[in-house]
C-alpha cells in the first residue's frame, strides 16, 4: 500500500498503516508528521521524506525504513523490531529502548541511547554511522551503542558527557582516542579481537543497509566503554 502523506495528519497516516494489516506500506512525501508507526508490530513501513518526532515509539516488531532524516525520540521505549534511517536522526534517538535495533546512517543529536536497558534475551542495539551529540548513552543500563564517525574529520565521534550516569551496557566508539572529558565513573579499553567479533554482525548489517565498506570502518580503532559500577547510588545515602 502506498500512502501519499502530503495532506495527511499523523492520525490519518497511522490509521492507514494499521488498515494495511500485514502488507508492506510505503509512505511518500512525509513531512514532519509525528508518531508514525507507534506501537506497531510485524509490519513493514518504508518512509520517503522526513518523519516527525516519536517515530516508531513502543515499536513491538517489524521494520521501519526511512529514506531521509528523522527527528527526535525515534524508537522511544521500543521493545523489538528494526528502524533504519538513511540520513540523520534527532535528539533522544532510542530513548529507553529495551530491544530491537536502530541503525542511523548519519549523525544523531543529543542524548542518543539514553536509558537503554536490556533484559534476558532482549538486548537493544543502536548503530550510528556518523557522530553523536552530547550525553550519548546517559543512564544507559543495558544494550549496545556503536558510534562509527564515518566521513567525519573529528578524531572522537561524540560530543561532551559521553556515558554520563551509565550503569550497564556497552558503548563502542570508533575513535582515535577517548573523549577528553571521559568520566571517572566509566572504564574503557581498546577493543580486542573478541569485542570486534561481537560487533561484527552489527557492522555487517550497517554496511549492507547503507552501502558502506567494512574496509573503511576497520581503518580506525574502537574503544569499548563500560560503567565501573552497576549501583552508582549505593554509597550516597544515610538512613534516617
Amino acid at each position: 500500500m502506498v500512502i501519499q502523506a502530503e495532506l495527511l495528519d499523523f492520525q490519518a497516516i497511522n490509521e492507514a498503516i494499521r488498515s494495511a494489516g500485514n502488507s508492506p506500506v510505503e509512505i511518500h512525501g512525509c513531512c514532519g508528521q509525528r508518531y508514525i508507526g507507534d506501537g506497531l508490530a510485524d509490519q513493514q513501513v518504508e518512509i520517503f521524506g522526513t518523519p516527525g518526532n516519536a517515530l516508531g515509539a513502543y515499536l513491538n516488531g517489524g521494520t521501519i525504513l526511512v529514506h531521509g532524516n528523522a527527528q527526535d525520540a525515534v524508537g522511544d521505549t521500543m521493545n523489538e523490531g528494526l528502524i533504519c534511517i538513511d540520513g540523520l536522526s534527532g535528539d533522544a534517538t532510542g530513548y529507553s529502548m529495551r530491544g530491537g535495533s536502530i541503525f542511523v546512517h548519519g549523525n544523531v543529536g543529543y542524548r542518543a541511547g539514553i536509558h537503554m536497558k536490556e533484559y534476558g534475551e532482549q538486548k537493544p542495539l543502536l548503530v550510528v554511522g556518523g557522530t553523536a551529540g552530547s550525553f550519548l548513552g546517559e543512564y544507559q543500563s543495558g544494550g549496545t551503542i556503536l558510534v562509527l564517525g564515518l566521513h567525519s574529520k573529528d578524531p572522537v565521534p561524540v560530543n561532551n558527557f559521553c556515558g554520563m550516569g551509565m550503569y550497564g551496557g556497552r558503548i563502542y566508539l570508533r575513535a582515535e582516542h577517548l573523549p577528553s572529558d571521559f568520566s571517572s565513573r566509566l572504564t574503557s579499553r581498546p577493543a580486542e579481537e573478541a569485542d570486534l567479533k561481537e560487533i561484527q554482525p552489527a557492522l555487517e548489517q550497517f554496511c549492507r543497509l547503507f552501502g558502506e565498506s567494512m574496509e573503511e570502518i576497520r581503518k580506525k580503532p574502537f574503544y569499548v566503554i563500560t560503567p565501573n559500577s552497576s549501583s552508582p547510588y549505593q554509597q550516597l545515602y544515610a538512613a534516617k
Partner: protein
Amino acid sequence: MPVSMIYPEFEIIRKEDRCIHCRLCERQCANEVHRFDKEHGRMLADEAKCVDCHRCVALCPTRALKIVKSDHTFRPNANWGEETIHDIYRQADSGGVLLAAMGTPKPYPVYWDKILVNASQVTNPPIDPLREPMETRTFLGKKPHQVHRGPDGRLKNELSPGLSLDTPILFSAMSYGSISLNAHKALAKAAEKLGICYNTGEGGLHEDLYQYGSNTIVQVASGRFGVHKQYLNTGAAIEIKMGQGAKPGIGGHLPGAKIAGDISKTRMIPQGADSISPAPHHDIYSIEDLRQLVYSLKEATGYQKPILVKVAAVHNIAAIASGIARSGADIIAIDGFRGGTGAAPARIRDNIGIPIELALAAVDQRLREEGIRGDVSIVAGGSIRESSDVVKAIALGADAVYIGTAALLALGCHLCRSCHAGKCNWGIATQQPDLVKRLDPEEGAGRLVNLVTAWTREIKEMMGGMGINSVEALRGNRMMLRGIGLSDRELSILGIKHAGE
C-alpha cells in the same frame, strides 16, 4: 568500635510478669531487636534497632510489650532540637544524604483541618443516604463543551475515553519493588471489588495482576521500567509520572539489592542492577514535548485509554496544570508535598513543594478562568487522611482523590517510616519472602474494601447533610466550605469564606 552518639529513640517496655518467653517477638522482628538470654532465662532487647513498627507489640500473646518514646534528653533547646542534632551526627558519621520514607512528619499546616463543611438547616433539607439514592459514581476524563444530537434527536456519543469509578477514590501509585507483590495484589483485588482503580507505579505490572487490568492505571515514568505494548494495552488508563509530592524535582532509585527475582522480571532489568528513574523525562522540556509523550501513548494504544499526567504540587502549579490541560492529557493528578514515598531524601521531602489544598484550589480556579476546566479531570493526592478530606478536596475542585498512605495503613502499616530499609515487618514495603507472606492479599483486600466502603458511606452522609445527592454537585462547590483561623490571603487562595461569613 566508634562511639555512637545517637541514643535510641524508643524504649521497649517488657512486663516481666507477663512475658512467657515464647520468643514470638524475636521471630517477628526483622530488625533483630529481641533476643533470648539463655543464661538468665529472659528476653532482651536492643532498642537501637527498633523502628517502632509495633509488630511485636501487636503479636505478643500476653500483651507484655509496649514501645514508648525515650525521655532521654539533650539539654532543652528550642533551636537545636533532638532530631536536628541526630541528623548532624548521622551525616558526620556517614557523609550521606539523609534518606527517609513516607510523608513529611514536620508540623506544617494541614489546611483540611482549617476548613469546615456546611450542612442544611430548615431550607433545602438534608437527605438521608440510607433512604434516598446518593450518587458517588465519578467519571474521569475530558468532557465535551457541548452536546450534539443526531437527526433522530438522540445524543451523539462524542465522549473521549475515560475512567468510571464507583466512588471518587483511587489507590495512588506505589511500585512493585517499593511495596511487595502481596500488597499490590491486595490493592488490585480491592480496586476490582470497589469498582475503582489502583496504580502500578513505575515498576511495571506483575504477570499475575494482568487480570485486574480494567481496574489498573499503568504508569510511565522517566525510567520506563516494564513499559511495553501489552502493559500499555492492559491498563484502564496510562499515567505519565512527571513528579511526586514527596520528592518534587528528583527521580527515584530502587537499589540493586532489591532487584531480584520477579522484580527484575517485571521491571525488565537485570538482577542486582540499580533501577534509576531520572528526575526529568529527557524528551520533555516543554508542554509541547509533554504533548508528544501524551500523543505517542495515545497513538500506540489506539485512543482507547485516557492519559493522566501526574505532577507534584509546586509553586507555579496553576500555570503548569494549565499547560498540562492543553497537552492533550485527560486527567491531571496533583500530588501535594505531604504525600508519601518509599524513599526520598529527607530534606527534599520535608522542604520542597506546597500543600495539596492550596495547589488544588489554585489549579481549579485557573482552569475555570481559562475555560478549560472541562477538558481535564483533577485527581488530588498527597495526604488524604479521612473521608472529610475527600469531601473538602472535591468541594475545592477535585474530581477524585488518590489515597496511598491511608491504603497502606489499612494493610497494616504503622507509619514507622522505615520503608527504605526494606525490612517491613508487616509485609508491605519489603521483598523478603518470609516478610511478604505475612500480608495475606485476600485479607488485605478485605480491609481496603472496608476502608473505602466506610469512607464512601461517610461521604454520602456529609453530602446528604448538605442537601446534595450527587458527587457531581459537590465538585467545586466552595460555598459548602468555610475557613477557620485562616488569613485573608489563605482564604482568597482557597476561594472560600471564613466561618461566620
